[in-house]
């Protein structure tokens, strides 16, 4: 039986809020753990081959990896790397996105046409390929990944900022500001930027998720964060040869990665719903 669309089920609403709170708590926990990582009793890099591939025990709560390092310690430190790179890429993408987006949206004319043409070309590449191209150009390592992942996200940010600028610019208060002789730079900072905070926050949340995912994917492929720096993708790559012998090396960091991504995507969705009531389903 096909039932017509009914109103929002209250039960669903409560579940939704609980999931949002749980997502937030999970992310806070991961960040706190990453910050407090040096308090852990084990070293994330020091090898101890006599302890290699041990299953979870009381001493090593998640067991050890293929080189005898405590897996929990590696995962916690890995959070520092992955989330650090993702946040760095957000800074790069936001800065460049605001710069080019405001110039395109506010400047208009030929500048706008050129910037948007470049943006459209870049947007026609899959994200992984853009990131690969950047890594091929500037090389591997933490700082380079921040730049590579940040730059692959710039076109999306430029388009978002430009769209918002065009929408804000049409308002009468901006026209009024222009009429009393406000300089364009002042209008951009005082009237336009505050209106960008909401959409940018949503986009940034999704970029953190995409950044964590791309960082771990590139590291898994062996062209991201070079060893021995702990990173979720490279821990997974280390465990792939021991799938039958020590599946915990693959399972544990993957589950952490999965739930962090899930939490980030859910929070991004909720943030978007909260900021844009029209998009609510």
């Amino acid at each position, binding site marked *: 039986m096909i039932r017509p669309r009914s109103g929002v089920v209250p039960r669903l609403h409560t579940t939704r809020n609980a999931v949002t709170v749980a997502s937030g708590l999970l992310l806070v926990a991961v960040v706190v753990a990453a910050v407090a990582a040096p308090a852990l009793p084990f070293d994330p890099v020091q090898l101890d081959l006599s302890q290699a591939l041990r299953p979870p025990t009381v001493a090593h709560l998640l067991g050890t990896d293929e080189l005898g390092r405590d897996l929990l310690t590696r995962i916690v430190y890995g959070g520092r790397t992955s989330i650090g790179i993702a946040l760095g890429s957000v800074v790069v993408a936001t800065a460049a996105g605001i710069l080019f987006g405001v110039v395109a949206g506010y400047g208009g004319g030929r500048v706008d046409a050129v910037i948007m043409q470049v943006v459209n070309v870049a947007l026609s590449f899959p994200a992984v390929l853009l990131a690969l191209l950047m890594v091929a*150009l500037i090389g591997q390592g933490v700082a380079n990944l921040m730049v590579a992942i940040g730059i692959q996200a710039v076109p999306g940010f430029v388009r978002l900022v430009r769209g918002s600028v065009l929408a804000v610019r049409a308002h009468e208060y901006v026209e009024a500001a222009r009429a009393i002789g406000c300089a364009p730079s002042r209008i951009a900072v005082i009237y336009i930027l505050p209106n960008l905070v909401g959409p940018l926050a949503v986009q940034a949340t999704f970029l953190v*998720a995409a950044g964590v995912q791309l960082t771990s994917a590139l590291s898994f492929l062996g062209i991201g964060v070079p060893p021995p720096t702990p990173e979720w993708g490279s821990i997974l790559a280390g465990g792939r040869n021991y*799938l039958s012998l020590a599946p915990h090396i693959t399972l544990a960091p993957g589950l952490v990665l999965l739930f962090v991504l899930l939490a980030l995507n859910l929070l991004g969705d909720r943030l978007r719903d909260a900021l844009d009531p029209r998009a609510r389903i």
Partner: protein
Amino acid sequence: MTTYILRRLALSAPVLVGITLVIFCAIRLLPGDPAIVMAGDLASGEYVDQLRHSMGLDKPVWIQYAIYLGNVAHGNLGRSTKSLRPVLAEIRDRYPYTIQLTVAGMLVAAVLGISTGAVSAARRDSVFDYGSMVVALFGVSVPIFWLGLILILLFSVNLRLLPAGGSGSLAHLVLPALTLGASAAGILARMTRESLLEVLGSDFVRTARAKGLRDTTVLLRHALPTAFVPVLTTLGLQFGSLLGGAVITESVFGWPGMGRLIVDAIAARDYPLVQGALMVFATSFALINVAVDVLYVLIDPRIRLP
């Protein structure tokens, strides 16, 4: 229709030119002499000189770009610095595998995603609906390489049902295709459900039901085709991410496609190969976008050709 296809192809020309420009500039932004970079560390001075001359590095930049465009147009993408074979030959060996994997992933995504979404919408608020939407949410977020490893652990290591890697038979394709298609299936399931629910609430569906048609008829003949247009849009958009995802999937399963080729080339700093492979990848992507646009016109009668 032919005019439309031709015009749409012409519109993607700037994108293709942009791609060549980006890749042309990219290799020149690299630190050091492009000839040495292109030739690789182990090349002889003679080879570097020869390469410098053939690349026309003594000429102005815009002439260099014109020469480069000419070479690309003639299918001359240079030689791999690692295998010394022509880049085009390397790509020709690998390209069919990537297409095979991407199409298989697409099929998995379309079949799994659309059927799940349709059943979810028809049985709204049921256990199946909630259950499958939670699974779909996980499908959207799961890192593709981890899903691949888990499937290997389950079906190859524990159950010994399917091969863990390699290529050659249909059995080899099952796990990579599932891995690649999972996230697109999740997105499509959510999209189909949403779109179908909207259609099911509309007047013409009520009319169809009021005149006594069976639920299945209303769903399959009236609602589903209408709900299909946004789903198709999503499907088209997903093709690009599938092509990108193939890069990762191929590495997990040792699938001998373009993705593995690019990753190995980056690791080996084999720049001619990276350039050529990215170029072919990007061009395929641009052409797929054209194909999707043409498909819209064929499927949605509301889109009129001017």
